[in-house]
């Protein structure tokens, strides 16, 4: 039986990988293509199903605006109900709905280190003008060791900002 040279097998495999990579590249590029928007409107936190204390609700809303502003991906950031957002041509909206909340204890965290964690789980949806979802993600914010209970909202907002950074690029950038 005629033997296939070892080198030719390696070359064939290498060629196959190159071709596969060449074919797959446009699809992957399409996947990582970032969205562009000139403005974003952050809506008030929806907490109809899960009761969230008012301080947490407002802290989460304010921290979301703060952290989204820090990403620098949008020229203008509108708050809930702000006039002027309706006139924006390239506007996306950020909706957040509370899925779960567990208020821990700062004292317990400081005394035991392992107990008393505070956590908030929120479903974040970024949609375009027509209401079509661009990003749909569940995000959790926690305070496990150090910090006040309200820090969970800050950590959650930071995670949302990370999602914004991953999915959006600055217009003209």
């Amino acid at each position, binding site marked *: 039986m005629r033997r296939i040279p070892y080198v030719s097998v390696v070359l064939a495999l290498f060629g196959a990988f190159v071709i596969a990579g060449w074919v797959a590249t446009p699809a992957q590029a399409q996947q990582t293509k970032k969205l562009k928007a000139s403005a974003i409107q952050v809506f008030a936190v929806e907490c109809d*199903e*899960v009761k969230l204390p008012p301080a947490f609700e*407002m802290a989460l809303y304010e921290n979301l605006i703060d952290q989204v502003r820090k990403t620098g991906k949008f020229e203008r950031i509108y708050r809930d109900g*702000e006039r002027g957002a309706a006139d924006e041509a390239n506007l996306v909206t950020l909706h957040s709905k509370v899925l779960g909340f567990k208020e821990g204890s700062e004292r317990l965290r400081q005394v035991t280190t392992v107990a008393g964690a505070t956590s908030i789980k929120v479903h974040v949806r970024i949609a375009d003008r027509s209401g079509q979802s661009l990003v749909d993600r569940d995000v959790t914010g926690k305070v496990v060791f150090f910090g006040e209970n*309200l820090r969970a909202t800050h950590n959650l907002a930071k995670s949302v900002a990370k999602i914004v950074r991953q999915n959006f690029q600055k217009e003209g950038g």
Partner: protein
Amino acid sequence: MTKPLQRILLVAGCLLACPTASVVAQEPVATSNVVHVLGLEGVKKKTKGHLFVSSGEVRFEAGTAKAEVAMASIQDIFTNADNKRLIGGKLGTLAMFAPYESDRFLSLFRRGIDVLTLKYRDAKGALHGVIFILPKGQAPLVKKQMVAQGAHASIPVEEEGQKPDTKQERKP
């Protein structure tokens, strides 16, 4: 003293007393040792200052930093009792390095605080949230003053301290 002189003195007294009374009524009520947690534009987070409640607005002052919220724009006011470590700040951080886990022991000593949350819309209709930390027992008083001056609150001051029987919390 003759009767006409008495009348003149009475009228003069009334004229002098009336403007003074109106000035007293308009004087803002101040609460000191208030910490701005977040929400006010132009004021840094965790700044200590004074909170003034007057007829038209709520004003927070911390040194040169100042911010006002119009009383009519306030949609809701919430108060909540909480507690904080007695030894905090830099000393509290240094206590972490103290021997024999004494930091944990010190964490058991706490002081009561009140949390005051305001929800308001500015002139453009934009929603804002502001959180203050007040000394224990002050938040209900400030809320009462604000409601008396025309601010809106969905939960009356008397009912705020009562906790609901059913817990609707869901673990994430």
